[in-house]
Every structure is written in C-alpha cells, then in structure tokens.
C-alpha cells in the first residue's frame, strides 16, 4: 500500500491536541522566577498637553520596583515606521514609547509602573498624578484637514502628512468623451469605518534580561519574531545577537500583532534596567483603545461608463485616517496596498488615484485583515452596483461585462498591479449557480410586491497578497526554511513563518512530506524562536503558504536531490535512474532494489564511508523570495431581509466561491474563509470604533464594540475554483484575507439593494436602517 499524497487532503491539524486540552502556552501563561508586572498609565484625553507628571507616591507604594516616564526612555528610538511618507520623514507622527509633552489619543501611554504583582502595579498606577491641559480634538477626518482644525503636530501647520494629487487631464478627457458618447458619469462618497481587530488573545510580552550574559529574551504575542527582534534591538540600543525572541502560541493577530509597540520596548528596557523579568499583558479595554485599528478611509469616487455598463474610467480620491501616530505600515496601507488593486477584477482602461493621509486624535491605524484591499475592493464593488442601478442592469451582468478575461493574464492593471492568473467569470457563474440567482431575483420581486425588503448583493473581488517581491518593500520580504533530516528519518522544518491559528504545522508538514514521499507525521514544523529558525519575515498578508510554504518546498526539493545522490551510491546506480516513491529510493525498472528514506537519512548522518564528493549530514536553508505577488479572487453573494418595524438586517444566505489557487488542506482553507467572512460581515452589519468629538473612545469595552456572535450568522455556503498561480512552485495564491475582502461589499450591496437607495455607509445597524426606512 502506497503513501498517498497529502497535499489536497483535509487531514486533522496537529496543533489541536495541545490546544483542545489546555496544554498550550500563550504569553500570559509564562511565569518566571522573580517576574515583575507592568501596568501602563494611559491618557484619558483624546488630546492634551502634559504640564507635569508626579510619580513620587507611586514609587513609594510597597512592592513597586520602578516607575518610568518618557524621561526614563531617553535614547530609546521612536516606534518603527517602514516607509515614512511626506512629513513623516521629517518627524511628523513619530513617537517614543511614552508620551512627551502631549498626549494625542485616548489610551496614549504616559507612564508605567513595574511592581511585584499585577494588583500592586495597578494600585500604584492610580497614584501617579498627571496635570493635563485638555485640548480640542481633531476627530472627523475631513474636518481635521480644514484650516483652523486642532493640530496634533503644531510645527507642521497641518494634520495632513502627505498628499498625492496627480494632474487629471487624462481622466477628465475620458469622462467628457464618455458623456459625449451617451454614457454616464456617477459620483459617490464612500466611508470605510474604523474597526478594532479584537483577536481573542490581547497583546502581551515577557522580557527577561541576564546581566552576566547581557542576553535579552523576549516572549511576545507577535506575528513576526525576527522583525520584532531586529527592530527592538535597534530601538533600545541592544546588540541584535543578544536579543532572543520567542513567540509562543498566539491567540489571533489579524494584523494587530505585526507592529513593534511601545509596551514591548518599555518592558525590554525595564528588564534590562532592573535585571528581573518584566511581564505586561494587555487587558481588553487597552486592546480596544490602543492596539492598532483597521480601515478608516474616506473615498470620493467618480466613474464613467457606457450605456451598456462598460466602465471607461475611474477616479478615486482616498483620504486615509492615520490616527495619532505613524506605526509600521500606517501611512502606506491605502497607497501601497489598496491603490494598486483599485480596478479590481475589471478591465478598466484609465484610473486616476489621488490621496491625502491625515493625523487625527484617535488610535494609530495599521494592517487589519486585508490591509487596504478591503477598502479598495469595497469602492470598486460599490461602483459596479452604482453603475448597474443607474442603467437598470443586473449587477451580475455588469460585472461579467467588465471582467478581465482569462487570456489577458498576466494582466497589467491601470492601477499598477500585475495580476498573475484569474478566471473571474468561472467563479461568478459558480456563485450564481449555487445561489440559484434567477430564482432569488424572482423571490425578491415577489417579496417586493408584498412590501418586504429583500436584498441580493454581489462582490467579485480580487486581492493582492503573498508579499513580497524584490523592490516592493524597504527590506526583502522573502521567507525562510531550514530543513534537517535526522538520523531516524524524522524531518525537522524550521520556518520563518509565524502562525497564529493558520495551521502551518500541518500544512507545511503536508508540503514537505509529499516531496519526500513520507507521511506528514514524520515531519515536525518548528517556528517562533529566533534562535532556531532562520531569519524570516512572519505571517500576515496571506503570505504564509505562498511564500513560507514555497521556501519549505524548495528546501525539501534540494535535500531530496542530495538524498537521491546518496541513494544512488547505496544502490550502485546512476542518480538520474533513482526514483523516490512510497518512502523508498529505488532504481527505475528494478523496484526490488531499494533503500528506504530512513536508510538514506541514517547513512547521510552517520556513515563514515560516504563518497568524498558528498558532504555528510542532511540539512539545508533556503531563503525564498517571490518574483511577484499573487491574486486570489472570487465571487460572494449575500441575501438579506430587513425587518421594517425594527430596521434589523438579517443575513439569510452567504455564498462564497473563492479561488486561492492550489489548496494544500481544503479544511484549513475553508476555515480561513469562514473566519474571513465573519469579520467582513461584522464590518458590514455591526462593528465600528466610535470616538466622541473630544476624543473619548466610546467603544471601550466589548459591551460597546459589537462583536459577531455565533447566533448572528447563517450557515456559510462555500465552494471554490482552482486557478493556480504561476509565481510560486506550489501554485498557491493565499486565502487568509480573501473572505474578509469579498464579503463586506457583498453584504453592503445586498442591504443597499433591499432599500433601493444609491448608497449607505456601514455599519448597517438597526437604528440607521430604521431611520432610512421611515424617512422615505
């Protein structure tokens, strides 16, 4: 009986046994001898001057080891920014780990207490006296851009950090010509609201310093151990080789655990000063206030289309709300990630993109599941429906009419991205078929006649992921894999990828096992520790399988070649005649003459008679850099019914046909889509971060920030098409964010369809919808 290929099979996850029995270690589970606890004093104001801070009483509290303010962080660098645009390059928006002179958002860290236990730290924190002088806050992003708005960074004279306003001659011509030809031009303002990522595990860090060896060990709930290590070392002025980062189990990230935040910096500095381990665990209220928020973008869009519905030109002016400070990708989310895919799945000949990025007195924004692509896709998908509505056409057919065709790939979009492969019509047709679309429209007509509000919404999205190719980022975004085949035949894979629920211990084992023709159980996947894993870039941007998996695959291919060579000596055959099948190396045509995978592994590691041309051992490290990004795509269809009495939107059906290229483990792929759908639907229907006009965070606990619950979703109807990518050897496009990107516009389009209006901004909560119904 042979060893069946594992790729493509839904095998159970090997992560699960420890997780389902409570035996896994998350950062708050770490307890070190002599460990101290850190509590952070945060600004209760959205914008204020700090006149003085008095820490004397706090310092004297029994059990307190230290109290730090910005004065104690002298020489520590500012929170890292990957690409400082515009005035950010001149210092606008940069901040040290503790506030100096001013606080600029509710929750801005002002001081920390380090104490013997968690309770003492909080009690002592309450004794710190800060003399604040509250200032008016800049909250609404468009108001923040106007002259006279409260300024976060007075010396720059504005809240706008960077603007990009290219000439509009070409798009103006296109619009004019379209009108002349009998087409239409539509305009719409679209708001993509601020969200809180809300991973179920909040952030946390334990920093431990050994004074003799000068080794700083940092456990952190992070998505990228090596980036954390490198940036932390640079910012706190510690030699890189003496910073050891260990990422234990991570309870979700969704982008909020990419950045290197103030708390990691402060805990590390504290540990170094005090020579004792320092632990900081974020509570949920802190997480809602200061862990990076997602989205918060206003788009002014203009579209020109023929009377048949073919789009001739698109003009998008995006305004990105940065929040109070620039963190790792804050300033580039819209421009670098969203803009290049602003044409979506459509063959739009001309697009004009302009931007303003603006500081406001809110938490910093940064990557949140989709990072720029949900915002861009939302605009494109709303535009299609606006065109369809204006022309009285079926939104499915307007999509079909505008799709990029399969024979146009690789496709250079007018917005800049070069799409790898795609077959958008196939995904659309599959979704239409599953939804029984014509029947749905008939049902809708019937229900409308009865005065009921039923809506059907589509979204045919594409997205860009698998970051990233040379030149696409300020540092190389390769991924790494070190494989060692042990004497026993067990395969150890050390990867630079860093999962937080994606299941790569299972999927990477599948990839490597198939290459070696062994069972996945024979492959161990290690991650998270900067001492044992090669320099990597981590897990975000749906890159883990596309880039990390490709690195693992490439390393396996390389070692397989060496094993074949060794086997050829053992079998006294030419290497080109040696095949590997069912865990055995044999000579083509003489299957009875074989050596097992384990035999070769043992020989490589222990033989004292290896041919002189062969280096002993069986270990290799690969750094794999993609040549291009990948472009997952799909069509989602949402069916909603709205209760006229209450304005409550009920999601009756959610159909998702997604194409992530080749699927390593279909069960894990579907899980990623489910989770993505939940977040995308959450944005459409209930989620929003809300600040008062003076900068108070109104959604400061889970009582106020609505999180989707199990009872709020229908059974998701999933299917897929498979259009492999050409940019990596696995054919994998990535799927982590696609569900979120595709679903939000589908739900929005459904609600707007139900109400028969041109546009409404999210979230579609009952109060908002009720008002619209009863004002009509």
């Amino acid at each position, binding site marked *: 009986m042979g060893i069946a290929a594992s790729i493509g099979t839904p095998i*159970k996850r090997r992560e699960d046994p420890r997780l389902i*029995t*409570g035996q*896994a270690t998350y950062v708050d589970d770490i307890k070190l001898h002599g460990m101290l606890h850190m509590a952070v004093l945060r600004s209760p104001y959205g914008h204020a001057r700090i006149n003085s801070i008095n820490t004397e009483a706090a310092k004297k509290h029994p059990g307190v080891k230290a109290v730090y303010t910005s004065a104690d962080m002298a020489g520590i660098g500012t929170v890292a920014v990957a690409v400082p645009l515009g005035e950010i390059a001149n210092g606008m928006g940069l901040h040290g780990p503790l506030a100096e002179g001013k606080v600029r958002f509710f929750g801005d860290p002002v001081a920390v207490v380090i104490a013997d236990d968690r309770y003492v730290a909080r009690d002592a924190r309450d004794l710190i006296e800060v003399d604040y002088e509250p200032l008016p806050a800049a909250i609404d992003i468009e108001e923040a851009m106007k002259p006279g708005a409260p300024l976060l960074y007075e010396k720059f004279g504005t809240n706008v950090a960077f603007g990009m306003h290219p000439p509009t001659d070409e798009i103006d011509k296109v619009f004019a010509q379209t009108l002349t030809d009998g087409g239409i031009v539509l305009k719409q303002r679209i708001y993509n609201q601020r969200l809180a990522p809300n991973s179920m*595990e909040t952030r946390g860090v334990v920093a431990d310093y050994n004074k003799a060896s000068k080794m700083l060990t940092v456990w952190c709930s992070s998505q990228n151990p090596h980036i954390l290590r490198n940036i932390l070392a640079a910012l706190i002025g510690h030699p890189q080789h003496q910073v050891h980062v260990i990422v234990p189990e991570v309870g979700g990230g969704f982008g909020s655990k990419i950045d290197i935040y103030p708390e990691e910096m402060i805990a590390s500095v504290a540990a170094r000063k005090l020579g004792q381990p320092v632990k900081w665990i974020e509570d949920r209220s802190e997480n809602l206030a200061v862990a990076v928020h997602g989205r918060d973008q206003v788009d002014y869009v203009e579209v020109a289309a023929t009377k048949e519905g073919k789009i001739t030109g698109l003009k998008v002016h995006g305004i990105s709300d940065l929040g109070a400070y620039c963190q790792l990708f804050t300033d580039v989310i819209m421009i670098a990630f969203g803009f290049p895919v602003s044409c979506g799945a459509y063959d739009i000949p001309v697009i004009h993109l302009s931007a303003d990025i603006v500081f406001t007195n809110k938490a910093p924004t940064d990557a949140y599941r989709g990072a720029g692509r949900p915002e861009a896709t939302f605009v494109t998908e709303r535009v299609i429906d606006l065109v369809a509505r204006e022309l009285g056409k079926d939104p499915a057919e307007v999509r079909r009419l505008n799709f990029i065709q399969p024979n146009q790939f690789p496709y250079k979009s007018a917005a800049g991205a070069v799409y790898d492969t795609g077959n958008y019509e196939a995904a659309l047709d599959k979704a239409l078929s599953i939804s029984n679309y014509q029947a749905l429209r008939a049902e809708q007509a019937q229900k409308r006649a009865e005065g009921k509000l039923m809506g059907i919404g589509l979204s045919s999205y594409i997205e860009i992921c698998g970051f990233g190719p040379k030149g696409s980022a300020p540092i190389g975004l390769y991924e790494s894999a070190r494989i060692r085949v042990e004497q026993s035949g067990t395969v150890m894979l050390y990867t630079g990828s860093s999962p937080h*629920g994606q299941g790569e211990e299972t999927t990477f084992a599948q990839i490597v096992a198939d290459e070696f023709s062994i069972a996945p159980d024979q492959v161990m996947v290690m991650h998270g520790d900067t001492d044992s894993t090669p320099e990597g870039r981590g897990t975000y941007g749906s890159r883990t399988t596309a880039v990390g998996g490709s690195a693992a695959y490439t390393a396996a291919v390389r070692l397989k070649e060496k094993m074949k060579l060794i086997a050829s000596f053992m079998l006294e055959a030419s290497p080109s005649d040696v095949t590997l099948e069912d865990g055995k190396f044999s000579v083509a045509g003489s299957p009875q003459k074989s050596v097992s995978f384990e035999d070769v592994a043992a020989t490589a590691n222990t033989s004292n008679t290896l041919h002189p041309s062969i280096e002993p051992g069986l270990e290799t490290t690969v750094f794999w850099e993609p040549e291009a990004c990948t472009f997952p795509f799909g069509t989602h269809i949402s069916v909603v019914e709205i209760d006229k009495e209450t304005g409550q939107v009920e999601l009756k059906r959610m159909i998702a046909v997604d194409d992530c290229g080749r699927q390593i483990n279909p069960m894990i792929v579907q899980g990623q889509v489910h989770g993505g759908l939940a977040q995308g639907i959450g944005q459409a229907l209930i989620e929003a971060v809300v600040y008062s006009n003076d900068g108070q965070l109104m959604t400061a606990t889970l009582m106020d920030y609505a999180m989707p619950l*199990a009872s709020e979703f229908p059974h998701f109807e999933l299917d897929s098409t498979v259009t492999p990518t050409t940019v990596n050897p696995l054919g994998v496009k990535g799927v982590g964010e696609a569900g979120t990107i595709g679903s939000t516009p589908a739900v929005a389009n459904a609600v707007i369809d139900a109400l028969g209006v041109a546009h409404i901004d999210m979230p579609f909560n009952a109060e908002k919808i009720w008002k619209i119904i009863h004002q009509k």
Partner: protein
Amino acid sequence: MLLVHYLREDLGLTGTHIGCDTSQCGACTVLLNGDSVKACTVLAVQADGAEVTTIEGLAPEGGLHPIQEGFWEKHGLQCGFCTPGMIMASAQLLKSNPNPTDAEIRKALEGNICRCTGYQNIVSAVQYAAEHMRTGASEPVGAGE
C-alpha cells in the same frame, strides 16, 4: 480574587483564558459543580467547597472527551484561545440539550466569542460530539493521535 486568577496563577491551570474585562467573551468558562460559569465573574471564595472542572480536567485519563474530539475532527479551532471556554460551554449545552439543532447550538454559544473560525466548524464540532455522546459511540481516543 477572581476564580479565573486563582485557577491560572495559584493553581497553575492556565488552560482557562482571559479574553476581556466585562464578562462578554467566555474564554474563562469552567464548570462549577457541573454547571458552566464565567470564572471572571466568580470570586474564588465563592467556589470554596465546590467542584470546579477546567479544560484540563474534562477528558478521561490519557484520552479525549467527545467534545474535544469533535473540535479536532471538525477543525473547530484555529488559534485555540477561545477554545477551552467554548468547549466547556458546549459541555453545558449538551448536558441540558443532548440533541441540539444548529440554531440551538449557535444560541447557546452566544456567550463565547470567537474571532477566528466564524463559528461554522464549532457548530459542526458540537454536532459531532452530540452524536457520539448520544450513541455512546465514542471510545476514549489517545490524545497523541
């Protein structure tokens, strides 16, 4: 002192997690005298003399409880952080309702927030467990399998 802190810090049973500060999320769900409670909303002293079952104590020795099996078989978890609480809440559900519909499962788990799975496979996991517990078809499965 809250029960959840007593379990985690004094007893070292870190399987029970803390996910919020307002009793919304359910990550801290344990069984107190056989009934589910949110350990963040129970003072340790209130549990004096009671039997508390945490995730670590759910399974038979060396095996897995059918609910744990269900979560494994049906990919009912991703990051695992909400999972212990979700499993304990499911145990309560199946105790009161051994044959729940999907809708009943979703309603019963309203007190447990998951950000990763979208809940769909959690529902499947609980159905799997319900079936195995009803028919007694489940043999304790080695936790290493």
